[in-house]
């Protein structure tokens, strides 16, 4: 109890000390700095209507590569750890409702995921939510079957393929334009169309597949070492 | 060179005779104090001769063998390094080779040799005596050398000759008056130096036959006795030189040394014997404190 209060006190003192920063964080009414530049020239530079995607995939593509690597490392670690230290108790038979839901739902979910992934430069969404939703479709499939689904065998290959694609797309930019992950290695086309914004859709797809395979891998690993009780 | 050699031999022989004689006197006097008849005055000469002539003789090893030579060399060496009569160029002997410091350190020569001999004998009592003797020596040397150093600092010299000549011109120039406390301390150390009561635990006649030379007999012992007699005389002369104005003539030398030799006889029987650690502590503190008084006088 004393510890709880003491910690709270420390945190409050810290917060109080930090309050002096408030005057420096007043609400902006005009864009400035990098944000201003993105808004002004983002479309022109990248051909992506969605400026967030423009930032994520084109301008700061390296961050996104890093993000993918974060996921990759976490998933690899989780799979590694769970394969080294299995928790016992494999998959259990799915209940009736789950089994049926799992047969119906994956297809529409997959559709949504593909839309998110491929239209990242046009509308909200993008590779990450897209990939996650793909993974949830996989999760459903997995929950619906008592054995590990056949798809999980190709997961590592999919993972390697998408990751390598991402990396090679990046190096393509370095080779041709001297700039890693530049999306303009092919023409940026007409903004607003599906095939536009250079390699952004491709990268998004790679990201989506990568994210999906990583999360699916995690799910598979979880599942392998015992389902949700 | 020849003169020096003759002088050396004569001085040594003279000191031997004088030393044995003094020993005889002391035995006679002690006996009369005790109310005994006691030995004859010449008993020491007889003993020495007897030992020297004894046929059977054993030794325990090289160091045992060499120890009496060490002892003798130590005694004669000290004697030779001390100028015997001030101003007598012959009787200064070898004193040109070194000053008071040399004499002080050379006094260890004989002790060390004897201790080694005792050690080599393998007799535990001999070694016990050595242990005690060394400890007591370490104690009295502290205050004795303190007294000597005070003289040296006060008179600005380590040379015995210079110390003697600084005391000329009247009895009040004697160091005994100029440095009374240092002299007193030195006189106290004179007792353990000669291993008389109360500092005779080294010899401890009741427990250990004769101290370190327990295992010695015959000719070896005669050498040791000779060494010890000569060493005693050398010490007397040294004291006289240092504290009592030196000796300007044979007569003053004999009188002064004789009186100095007699002094323990009248002091020591009064005291009981100290245990080793008691004597060590006594010698560390009492005479040294005395010297400290003179030391402060000299420094201030």
């Amino acid at each position: 109890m004393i510890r709880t209060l003491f910690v709270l006190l420390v945190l409050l003192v810290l917060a109080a000390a930090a309050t002096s920063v408030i005057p420096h964080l007043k609400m902006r009414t005009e864009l400035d700095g990098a944000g201003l530049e993105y808004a002004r020239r983002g479309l022109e530079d990248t051909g992506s209507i969605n400026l967030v995607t423009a930032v994520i995939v084109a301008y700061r593509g390296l961050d996104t590569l890093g993000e993918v690597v974060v996921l990759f490392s976490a998933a690899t670690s989780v799979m590694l750890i769970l394969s080294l230290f299995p928790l016992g108790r494999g998959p259990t038979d799915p209940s009736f409702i789950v089994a049926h839901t799992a047969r119906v739902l994956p297809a529409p979910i997959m559709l949504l995921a593909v839309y998110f992934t491929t239209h990242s430069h046009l509308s909200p969404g993008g590779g990450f939510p897209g990939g996650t939703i793909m993974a949830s479709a996989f999760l459903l499939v997995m929950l619906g079957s008592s054995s590990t689904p056949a798809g999980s065998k190709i997961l590592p290959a999919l993972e390697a393929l998408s990751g390598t694609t991402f990396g090679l797309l990046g190096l393509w930019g370095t080779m041709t334009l001297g700039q890693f992950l530049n999306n303009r290695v092919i023409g940026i086309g007409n903004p607003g169309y599906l095939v536009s914004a250079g390699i952004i859709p491709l990268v998004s797809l790679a990201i989506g597949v990568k994210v999906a395979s990583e999360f699916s891998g995690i799910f598979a690993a979880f599942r392998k070492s015992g389902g949700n009780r | 060179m020849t003169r020096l050699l003759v002088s050396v031999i004569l001085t040594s022989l003279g000191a031997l005779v004088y030393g044995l004689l003094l020993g005889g006197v002391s035995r006679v006097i002690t006996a009369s104090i005790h109310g005994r008849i006691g030995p004859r005055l010449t008993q020491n000469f007889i003993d020495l001769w007897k030992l020297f002539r004894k046929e059977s003789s054993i030794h325990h090893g090289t160091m045992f063998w060499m120890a009496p030579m060490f002892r003798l060399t130590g005694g004669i060496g000290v004697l030779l390094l001390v100028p015997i009569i001030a101003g007598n160029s012959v009787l200064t002997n070898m004193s040109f080779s070194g000053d008071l410091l040399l004499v002080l350190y050379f006094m260890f020569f004989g002790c060390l040799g004897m201790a080694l001999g005792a050690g080599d004998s393998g007799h535990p009592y001999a070694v016990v005596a050595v242990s005690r003797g060394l400890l007591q020596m370490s104690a009295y040397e502290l205050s004795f050398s303190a007294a000597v150093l005070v003289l040296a600092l006060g008179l600005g010299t380590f040379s015995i000759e210079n110390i003697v000549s600084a005391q000329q011109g009247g009895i009040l120039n004697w160091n005994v008056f100029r440095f009374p406390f240092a002299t007193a301390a030195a006189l106290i150390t004179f007792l353990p130096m000669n291993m008389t009561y109360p500092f005779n635990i080294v010899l401890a006649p009741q427990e250990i036959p004769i101290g370190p030379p327990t295992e010695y007999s015959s000719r070896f012992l005669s050498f040791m006795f000779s060494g010890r007699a000569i060493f005693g005389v050398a010490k007397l002369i040294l004291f006289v030189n240092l504290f009592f104005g030196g000796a300007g003539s044979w007569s003053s030398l004999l009188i002064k040394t004789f009186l100095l030799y007699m002094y323990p006889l009248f002091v020591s029987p009064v005291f009981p014997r100290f245990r080793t650690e008691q004597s060590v502590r006594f010698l560390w503190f009492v005479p040294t404190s005395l010297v400290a008084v003179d030391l402060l006088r000299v420094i201030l």
Partner: protein
Amino acid sequence: MVTALAVFLPLLGAFLTAWLTHRNERLSLLITRLFLLAGLAAILVIAARLGAVTDGGLENTMILRTGVMTPPLSIDLKVTGWSALAAVVVYVGALLGVGRFSGRIPGTQPLLLTLVTTSLGLMFATDFFNSFVFIEIGSIITIGLTAAGRCRRRWEVALKTAMISGLVTILYLLAVVIVYRTTGELRLTAISTMTGFPAILVSGLLLTVIMTEIKAFPLSGWGLDFYQGVDKNFAAVYSSTWSLAVLLWSARMLTVLPLPDPGVLARIGAGGLVLGQLAGLRQRDPGRMMGYSTSAYASILLILAGTVHGADYLSLTLLFFTFASLSKTTVFLMADPEEEDDPWKKVSGYVLLLPLLCITGIPPFPVFWAKIRMLTVLADISPLLMGAVILGLFFESVYIYRLWSSRTGPWQKKRKYFDAAFMGAALLAAGTVWTAAGAEQGLSLSGELFRAGFVRDLFLAIFAGGTLLSLPGAFRGGPGEKSPAVWMLVSGVALTLLPLSGNGLTFYVLWEISAFAAVIGVSKGARPSEGTFWFAVFAGAAGYLLLASLVLSDGAVSSPGIPMLLVAAAALLKMGQGGAHLWNVRAYSTAPSTMAAFLSGTSSKAAVFLLVFSASAAAILPLGTSLAWIGALTALGMAAMASLESDYKKVLAYASVSQLGYVIMGIGLTSVLGWTAAIYHTFNHFLFKSILFLGAAGVIARTGTSDYDSLGGLVKRMPLTFTFTLISVIAFAGVPPLSGFGSKWLLYNALVEQGMLPLALVAMFASVVAFLYAFRLLYAVFLGQLAPRHYEVKEAPLAVLAPQGVFTAVLMALSFRPTLLLDRLVPAVASIAGLGGEIPVIEGTALSTSLGYWDAWSVGMMVMGVFGFAFVFYWISGRRPIHVGQLDIGFAGELPPSPEEVHYAGDFFRPFRRALAFLPEIHASKVFGGIVKTADLAGDVFRSLFTGDARTYLLHSLIILTVMILWMKGGTP
């Protein structure tokens, strides 16, 4: 393109192996290695192109653009010569470790490869948020690989690491918010333009993040737990990849932090160094020691960031961290992760020696150059800061030493150890050559650091002669000992070069080499642990004091004032004076006997040399009389201790310290006579102590014991050894006619001349007490009863006997003709400026001062004459005595029971002990034990911060953050 390849090749490899590793582990490992090699090649090309190996190339830059447009819109990766070299280390470390770690645990290659890319990315990152992403990847992989590692406590470590990284995430993102809102962009360089409170807040947040990530005290708790609990083979990879990357990234971050006063960093670092290393002092767990060492380097980074700038900063950070990382990797590679409690249990100390020396910064290893440069800079800023840093480094070296010394495993010809050791050694050697060649301050063996002349040559002769003559006996160790010959030779050569050193740095380097070689030599003894430890500690302390003096006096060994005091303290420690004898006694008694002879006879003279020349260069000796008093009291106290001691080698050790006390006394007088006495006695001591210890070596080699109670009567079996010992004993006791008296005579003359009678008295008393142990030594070992088990003992081996003979011959020559030495010594000393007092006059064989005179030749002749006469007289005056055995004694008619019982050697001077009983018992061991205990207690206070509860560590970070913000806020209007 090459840059992109260098960075991203491992990542591609990771994607590939993630797939492969499920199918073919061996192929996967091969691919891993191939990708790493390719990446290494790429980064080597870059490093070459940037000209990074030459000194100026560290700042050359190569940009890898990513995304569209340029920063601040997009993200750059910037490779400098500096980071390229570090990247090389990352690759090398990964290559070294990947086989070992992933070979044991399948499926880890993708993570290791990703870690390499991430490390490079972080080192090259120029964007604030980009760095964050890399940090997250690094943390995740660290957690994952920790959890995958084969060690019992992996879960705890992984969980703690995860919690720390969670906190770091939050703090970092808060900083991102503030940076972006106030500067409008996310380049790292933008941070430095911030002002006002946001600057303070961001500095606080980032400093906390950095200190936590680099494990700087007091935020090092998790790092300590990490290194203790983690799989050591992973730690090997981690040290030179992620850990290095974070350090170098932090090094760049610290320079852009908008701190009101960068000096704060130095103070935080120095404080952390002292307190953190103090906490590490009592550390026993080897893994945790490595953690503490890491924390020391983290503090060093803070110090550097606060004090050093520009090219210096680059080269220093690079030197410190790359080589420390590499060394750490090498150390961890040799660990056996299956041994949980002590992973280095079976490792030979030889294998660990090189990397550990490099970590501690012993010359000539690269870290040393960085260290001395850093200290030089610090000395200009604040000597106090420098002192703190030196203290901290000293603490570090103590536990690193402990880490090394407990490695008793034999040299195993396991390939596993071999390749690690070999590669480590090769890399370190390359680094050494590189730094030594480029080192700003070159080493030089020609120059006038020490005034050439007789005194210098005399010391040269002592060092060279002592080494040569101690060496033969060292080739075969005594019972239970290993041969210290190699180390003695190394130490001796360094010593011999000492007087020739052309500058202070050279001197220090040689001094340290000599010291650590001696430490290793000592560790070859029969029961080395404690003695070697104390020797190492004191030698280390002396070395660091010397280092401080060197740095403060700008290239000379010393200069007037504080540096001279430091040098004096170092010399006193080295000579065991003033209570520091603890090490001498313990080291001499446990070292191989010949090593002890070398240390006491030869090596200790280095301190005299140092003191003499420093004092003469500085023209004055501070302390003066107090120094003399220290010497006098040491001489007395140690003589008493020697008398009461019953171990042959310990007695000699006490005696050695006691005798050196006279030297200190003489030097402290700062008069011609005093210095003549000191140097004369130094030479004397060199002779007789070498003889004594070599004699002891012979005795111990033959009997296998150094206990007085078990020895005795050996004169019958080892007459030559006895003769030599006897002569040297007479010499050191100062009994005329042997050479020791000369020292005494000169010394008393000097003392009385200066009017220092009390001092003279103490000296006199000490020399009388010396008789006690002198006799006891001769008696207990050589005289008295010979124990039956020693009946068959042979004379000492020729290898120790012959050198004794040589020493004795010189000693005898010096005894009878001291003028051989004094003829040259007196004028040489008289010509030293700053020495007062009269100059002794030499006429023929006689020496005289205004006080007295001494003619060694005629004394010698007299003694020889009288002794010869007595001898001859005895010989001719009667029959030869019959030789009988030692047991044939007058024993009150009884048969003596047995030689052992009759031999009276134990507690020989019991009355002396009784007489001393009134003194309070002040044992040096107790005093130093007290110091150690105090340090331990203080260390425990700081150690107790690290409760092991991860939440506590997080709380530390938050408290530090709060304190820093409040502090900086208060500091600026």
